[in-house]
């Protein structure tokens, strides 16, 4: 561990007047699940596709498993598994045939049954791709990315458009790559996906990486406050002067407090309640999320 397998330095891509990727640099360690989190149009896909050799960068370098992608793009592609966003398959080939076809384009190939079992597509082995559900198609897409037994897997928005159940299934599959010693680089605009799945997350906005660290550290650094929310029935206290409280929002009897010390805040609220100063119910304590980190860093929400 700790060995760099993807090294990206100052990647730059411009489309006309728009800078899609603005000098992005990061390193991914072997065996890590690395996430790029950001809203649509942040430049996540362009970044990924430059590393995969599908797009030629206007500047910067990307080295994958020791190979400079600009020098030997097909050499890089032989070592990686690529799952593309919104790319279709041949409608009237079966799952198995699709894997055979894409396997024939690789330099090494595992038996299609292996990845079919891995992605739980056994029942659909002989079904035409056009008859698969969205979740099954997404799993096929990942199965195709695994057909050359790659050391590094690139997943572009792997769970977009899936229902919550299918999304959780796919998370399990992706998390299991860690145990196989594969490295995963994925993009997502789902805060929860990045937080649950990724060892480290790069937060991207307007073509730039605005923060990069483990989800926990990102939250601690950029959104250190915990939310304490309560529905007030009667009475009132000076919320702003409660211990730890940094910010107060009151709307329709719902009070939302931002606290740097949630334990002390909650304790003080309990005391006030016992003293009869305030009556409330539904006290909720919520940790900050990457959504809050994004909000803090950019002033906008992820899905705006």
């Amino acid at each position, binding site marked *: 561990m700790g060995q760099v397998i993807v090294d990206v330095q100052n990647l730059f891509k411009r489309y006309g007047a728009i800078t899609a990727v603005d000098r992005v640099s990061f390193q991914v360690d072997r065996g890590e699940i690395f996430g790029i989190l950001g809203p649509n149009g942040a430049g996540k896909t362009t970044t990924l596709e430059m590393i995969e050799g599908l797009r030629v960068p206007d500047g910067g370098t990307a080295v994958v498993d020791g190979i400079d992608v600009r020098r030997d793009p*097909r050499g890089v592609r032989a070592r990686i598994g690529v799952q*593309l966003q919104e790319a*279709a398959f041949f409608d*009237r080939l079966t799952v198995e*045939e699709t894997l055979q*076809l894409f396997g024939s*384009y690789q330099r090494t190939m595992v038996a299609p049954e292996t990845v079919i079992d891995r992605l739980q597509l056994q029942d659909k082995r002989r079904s035409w791709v056009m008859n698969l559900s969205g979740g099954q198609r997404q799993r096929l897409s990942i199965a*195709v990315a695994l057909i050359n037994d790659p050391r590094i897997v690139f997943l572009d928005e792997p769970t977009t458009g899936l229902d919550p159940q299918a999304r959780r299934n796919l998370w399990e599959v992706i998390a299991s790559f860690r145990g196989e010693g594969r490295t995963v680089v994925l993009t997502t605009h789902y805060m929860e996906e990045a937080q649950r799945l990724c060892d480290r997350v790069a937060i991207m906005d307007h073509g730039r990486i605005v923060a990069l660290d483990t989800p926990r550290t990102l939250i601690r650094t950029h959104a250190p406050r915990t939310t304490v929310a309560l529905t007030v029935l009667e009475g009132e206290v000076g919320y702003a002067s409660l211990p730890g409280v940094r910010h107060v929002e009151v709307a329709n009897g719902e009070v939302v407090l931002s606290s740097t010390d949630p334990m002390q805040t909650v304790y003080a609220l309990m005391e006030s309640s016992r003293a009869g100063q305030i009556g409330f119910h539904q006290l909720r304590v919520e940790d900050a999320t990457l959504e809050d980190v994004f909000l803090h860093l950019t002033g906008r929400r992820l899905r705006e």
Partner: protein
Amino acid sequence: MKAFVTTIIMGFRHYFRDRSSVFWGIAFPLILMALIGLAFGRSDSLTFSVGFVDQGGGPLSQGLHSGLEEVPVFRVIDETDQAQALEALRKGRRTLVIVVPPITSGQPVQVFFDQARVQDSQTALVILERFVAEANLRLSGAPQVVRIHTTGLKGQRRLRFFDFLLPGILAMTVMQTGLLGVTYVVAGYRQRLILKRILATPVHPLVFLGGLVGRYALTNLVQIAIIVAVALTVFNATIVGNPLVVAGLMIYGTFVFVGIGFAISTISRTAESANLLGSAIHFPMMFLSGTFWPREFMPEFMQPVIGSLPLTPLIEAMRAVAARGDALGPYLPGLAYLGAWGAAAFALAASRFRWE
């Protein structure tokens, strides 16, 4: 190599699983053939081409000539050379050849027909004999002024309408694959990012594109084999030429029209617009190039246009080989012209090809 072969095999399966491609590639040409056969199939016996060689017959000759022109079913073609006229008869381009000898020779008028084309020849002869009898009746003073002597020749074979039609239909099918199939499929693959998927693998792009061309060559051969089998058994068509040469011509045509299809797909943004542009080129060419009827049926001023269409030399070579059993030699310049179209199309496609 494995990638190339797998691309062809999977492409082949994919193609024949699509009912619409089976319809357009096999059923549609056969339906077209049946309909056109019904409409025009008998027209070759409704007018007869009569070659007329005047060797100095004077007033008799002129009278006979103008008299024959009065007969509605005869198309009188003036010939200067008897040998050339008889050659045209053997090739099936004349039903009868009439030779009027020099007035001084006292010989009867010679009429030649093709023994192999019994039905047409006999019908035409009967009409001719009746015409001569009437003419003689009118010249009642001098019985048997016009005497005819008929000679049967062994022609090459009888060219039936379906024999004529089949090579045209086959060439049209080859063109259709390129202009209606490739355009839609390749532009669709690009639009739906399937090409990008291929690009995301280490395979050399030319291997995949070559496999795509190979798949069209294979599917075309299968389609053509089925169409030919049905035409031979159901429509009683015949192919007199070497089947290998016919297959070779079809593969050659496939390369050219697949190239043109590729070129069109690089110009168009969507599968639908590529298909539309392909259709706009396909349909006029189908009607002009002599697919269903001889190009001579089209007006004179159109002939240079027709001659410049890439489908025309393919149809002419196919028809010569398949229907008449001619040698390929005289058609090589036309086929080279067709090849130039293919080369230009591939060059355009290569310079404009985009993966997404």
